[in-house]
């Protein structure tokens, strides 16, 4: 059964089917939000908020075939709100984090430095890789980061990303291009290449 069919069932009164949607979307949404915010606790809260908002507003979804763009739109809006809220609440601490990030920007993350110092057969585990990529992504401007996450990890078409972010298609593509180039430079700086990761793996 497709998402569209499930949504039609829900809109016709069979609300228990919503859990099927939840089971389908829980993992991709959580991973999207986790990559966006970079914090497990926050990602969990925001995932729940997304489902609540979807549940409340499902009847406002005019075209059920665009559900995936719509749910990512809700998720990215809530993530944006969350970042704004954090910056208001933890004004000082966020400044400190930014300063910390700026200093780190020119350095390799600790995990990789450690592994480089280790024996050649030392392997980078998934945790270390995710930490490196996450830190690299955090260096990017938010608008580029969200496009890259939606394309690379959620597998959305550029058209769907444009719908979700409510931006022109060309803007989305150019953000993707600049984002990827930005990441390329960061990885170069850190001397992280595909070969290194493959070898170490």
């Amino acid at each position, binding site marked *: 059964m497709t998402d569209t069919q499930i949504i039609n069932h829900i*809109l016709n009164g069979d*609300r*228990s089917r*919503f*859990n099927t949607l*939840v089971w389908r979307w*829980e*993992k*991709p949404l*959580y*991973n999207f939000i*986790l*990559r966006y915010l970079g914090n*497990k606790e926050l990602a*969990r809260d925001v*995932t*729940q908020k997304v*489902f609540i908002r979807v*549940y409340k507003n499902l*009847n*406002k979804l005019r075209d059920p075939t665009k559900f995936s763009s719509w749910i990512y739109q809700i998720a990215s809006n809530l993530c944006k709100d969350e970042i704004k809220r954090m910056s208001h609440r933890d004004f000082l601490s966020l400044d400190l984090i930014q300063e910390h990030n700026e200093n780190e920007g020119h350095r390799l993350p600790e995990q990789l430095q450690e592994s480089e110092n280790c024996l050649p057969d030392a392997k980078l585990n*998934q945790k270390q*890789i*995710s930490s490196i*990529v*996450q830190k690299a992504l955090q260096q990017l401007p938010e608008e580029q980061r969200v496009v*890259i996450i939606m*394309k*690379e*990890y959620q597998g959305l*078409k*550029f058209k769907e990303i444009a719908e979700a972010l409510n931006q022109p298609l*060309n803007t989305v*593509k*150019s953000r*993707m*291009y600049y984002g*990827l*180039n930005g*990441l*390329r430079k960061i*990885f170069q700086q850190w001397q*992280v*290449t*595909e070969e290194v*990761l493959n070898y170490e793996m």
Partner: protein
Amino acid sequence: MKCNDLKPLFIDYLYDEISDKDRDLFLAHLSECESCQKELQALQQTSNILQKWENVDPDFNVVMVTEKISWLSHLKERWTQLSPKSQKFAYGLVYITIGIFLLLAIANTEISYRQGEFKMSMGLFSKPSSQQKTDELFAQEFVERLQKENYYLMNSLIQQNEAKQQKEIATAILQLRQDFERKRIEDLNLVGFGLDNIERNTYHQLKKTDNSLNELIHLINAQLK
């Protein structure tokens, strides 16, 4: 074609969202331009590095408990699902219905002055006057019938009561008479008995007197002799 003109196609090509026409253009340029080849390779590599970060399973489960919705909120929800056109239509229908009711109510307003006070009544539908008359007649008949029934009922009650009282009086008189009769017989008996006694006493006394007179006569006779 300049490299800069092809920049937008890098992303389309990389993620396989390029049209066939653009693909041919892009590949043609790529075969001639080494720097673009390098850039594409670098972007591809960056994308590959990103792919090393795998998805994780969430350490929680979201379960939505379906709420019980009241018919009112269900109605509201249905309402929001209606298209603006049909919503407008429904609004129009409601307004027209209310208007008709108001008109009827105003048209059938009655103000009357009866027995020193004003009376005003509003109704959706006017009452036919003939009906009102028969209603009044019917009411009058009803009251009369009720009065008659009451009269008969009272009469029968009174009669019953009287009969009962008479019966009671008769039995009381009978009993009194019987008592009186018994007492008279008793009295007569006593009188009879008393008379007998008196008779007997008188007889004895007369006999005594007779005897004593006889003795006296004997005595006198004896003395005379």
